[in-house]
């Protein structure tokens, strides 16, 4: 391993593993508590948190592309759409197993991302943002127009709940448990990818594309892989939505979805490890808190969102840094 004969004291021989600061651990704990609270309390909070878990999965994928790789995508709802309709069509029309349909849809979404990403990812910044946003809009319009496949605005009803080998998860509580477990699994996978040669390469691209290329990282390829990963997550989220709610229609995967998930990512902290989860939960719970103010709900939500963006522009999970004593700059 050493072509350079460098003498140094032996550092602790452990592979790199990202660490959360105490603030982040606290946030994660709060999110866990909230979810547990919802689980115990039951009622419609189950639904709120089910959706939060699904959005969380979506956002973890998005974080790969926007956070770690530093690219912009406003069009991940397109892949959620593929996932949702894939699951709906395969289960309702062809009687597939939900789990199988979910995986098959992910494959389709992944291939689509590969084909779309290859030419599109050459773009940068706002142009990439707009190109991906158009992809989302195009998919949305297709889902409305291609009525023979999607049934247009009528939507798809009667999608079976998630389950394996004939055993269906019917209870809302168990659905939430299953979704929380899946979110945990999705997070675990993302962590494994992040803390590795591959993940470091992605984050290097986000820091400096030139710097990354100069160190031999194949930037376009890494971007494409990150895009596909994000698409796989989005597709899974779309399928999970279909199986959890049992109904989908084009509006579910409309541009609104891109905006909501984007909000979640930035509220939680883009590029941070727990940002997607924190953001998904906070942004799902927030409107419920303001439900009691009736027609002022949206105003309250917008004001709080603006406040968060102004005072925590790097997201909630980065707030901890502000309180950490800054290290001595000079050695």
């Amino acid at each position, binding site marked *: 391993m050493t072509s350079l004969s460098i003498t140094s004291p032996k550092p602790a021989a452990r592979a790199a593993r990202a660490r959360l600061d105490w603030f982040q651990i606290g946030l994660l704990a709060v999110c866990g508590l909230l979810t547990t609270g919802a689980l115990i309390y039951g009622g419609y909070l189950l639904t709120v948190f089910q959706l939060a878990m699904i959005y969380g999965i979506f956002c973890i994928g998005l974080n790969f592309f926007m956070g770690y790789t530093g690219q912009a995508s406003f069009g991940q709802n397109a892949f959620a759409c593929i996932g949702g309709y894939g699951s709906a069509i395969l289960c309702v029309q062809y009687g597939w197993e939900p789990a199988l349909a979910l995986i098959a849809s992910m494959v389709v979404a992944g291939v689509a991302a590969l084909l779309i990403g290859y030419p599109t990812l050459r773009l940068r910044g706002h142009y990439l943002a707009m190109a991906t946003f158009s992809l989302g809009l195009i998919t949305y*319009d297709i889902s409305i127009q291609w009525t023979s496949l999607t049934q247009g605005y009528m939507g798809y009803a009667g999608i079976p709940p998630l389950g394996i080998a004939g055993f269906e998860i019917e209870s809302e509580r168990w659905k939430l448990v299953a979704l929380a477990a899946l979110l945990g699994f999705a997070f675990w996978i993302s962590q494994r990818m992040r803390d590795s040669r591959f993940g470091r390469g992605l984050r290097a691209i986000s820091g400096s594309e030139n710097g990354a290329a100069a160190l031999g990282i194949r930037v376009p390829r890494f971007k494409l892989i990150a895009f596909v990963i994000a698409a796989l997550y989005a597709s899974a989220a779309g399928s999970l939505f279909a199986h959890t709610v049992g109904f989908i229609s084009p509006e579910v995967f409309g541009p609104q979805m891109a905006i909501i998930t984007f909000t979640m990512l*930035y509220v939680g902290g883009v590029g941070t490890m727990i940002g997607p989860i924190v953001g998904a939960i906070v942004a799902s719970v927030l409107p419920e808190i303001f439900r009691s103010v009736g027609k002022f709900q949206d105003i309250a939500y917008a004001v709080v969102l603006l406040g968060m963006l102004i005072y925590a522009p790097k997201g909630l999970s980065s707030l901890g840094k502000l309180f950490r004593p800054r290290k001595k700059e000079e050695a």
Partner: protein
Amino acid sequence: MPSVVELVQSLVNGIGIGLIYGLIAIGFCVIYNASGIVNFAQGVFVMLGGMFAHTILTHYGLPIWLSAVLATILVAGVGVLVQIFVINPMWRRNAPLFAIILATLAVQLLIEQVVILTLGDQPRTYPEFTSGGPLKIGPIAVGYQLFWVLGCGAVMVFSLQQFFNRTRMGRALRACAQNREAAALLGVPVERMLIVAFALSSGLGAAAGILITPTQYTAYMVGGPFGINGFIAAIIGGFGSPPAALIGGIFLGVIQSEAIVFFGAGFKNIISLTLLLVVLLLFPNGLFGGLTKRA
């Protein structure tokens, strides 16, 4: 195969709506060039322009030209407020650009909701600036309002060009566009320039809204679609000069019209967005060049 008359008529209609997209696109460019921010609340200014003009016109009975001027000034004021209370604090905290974009979306939501509560959610429209019409050129009909849009658009583009090239403030804005850090070092008050940029672009958006309301309607939710189309037009135009943005808008309007003729309205957006993608991939800096900015 559609007839020639139909094609020409749809071309005229496309230009009409395209000019509006163009005016909105200029608003996007003014802010983007001064700050690198894409202001997604731009569509809301269009909506506010129409709403304010309608309110002044019907509630206070002022003449249309005065209503238009007052509405434009009011909306410019709203733009300034947005800059001072939302954009500037984020700017000072070095917020990531996409967080600022998200904030402009939140501003859009906020303004729309306030409009619902104060002005209501019904659609409004008011008569064209010049009654009568349309002008008939053979079998082709051209509404009088189109000439107003064309005229106002030309005047605005021309005066913007003059402003950017001839006045001190305009040149300072352009300096910000080229290099903010350098401009700041040279003593250009960048934050004040941003206020000017927001006032300008919200005023432009308002003008677009005032001009288009007679040919359709305005209501609290028209901002979203206008914003998206204006942004697409800005991208086609390359985020560069006002004329390029205007041409980008016309281009988009015409494409959408012809898409309806050849494929039906359902495919209007699919076609125009696909075209946008092609433009982006072939000309990554927009169809009309524009400033080559770093990502």
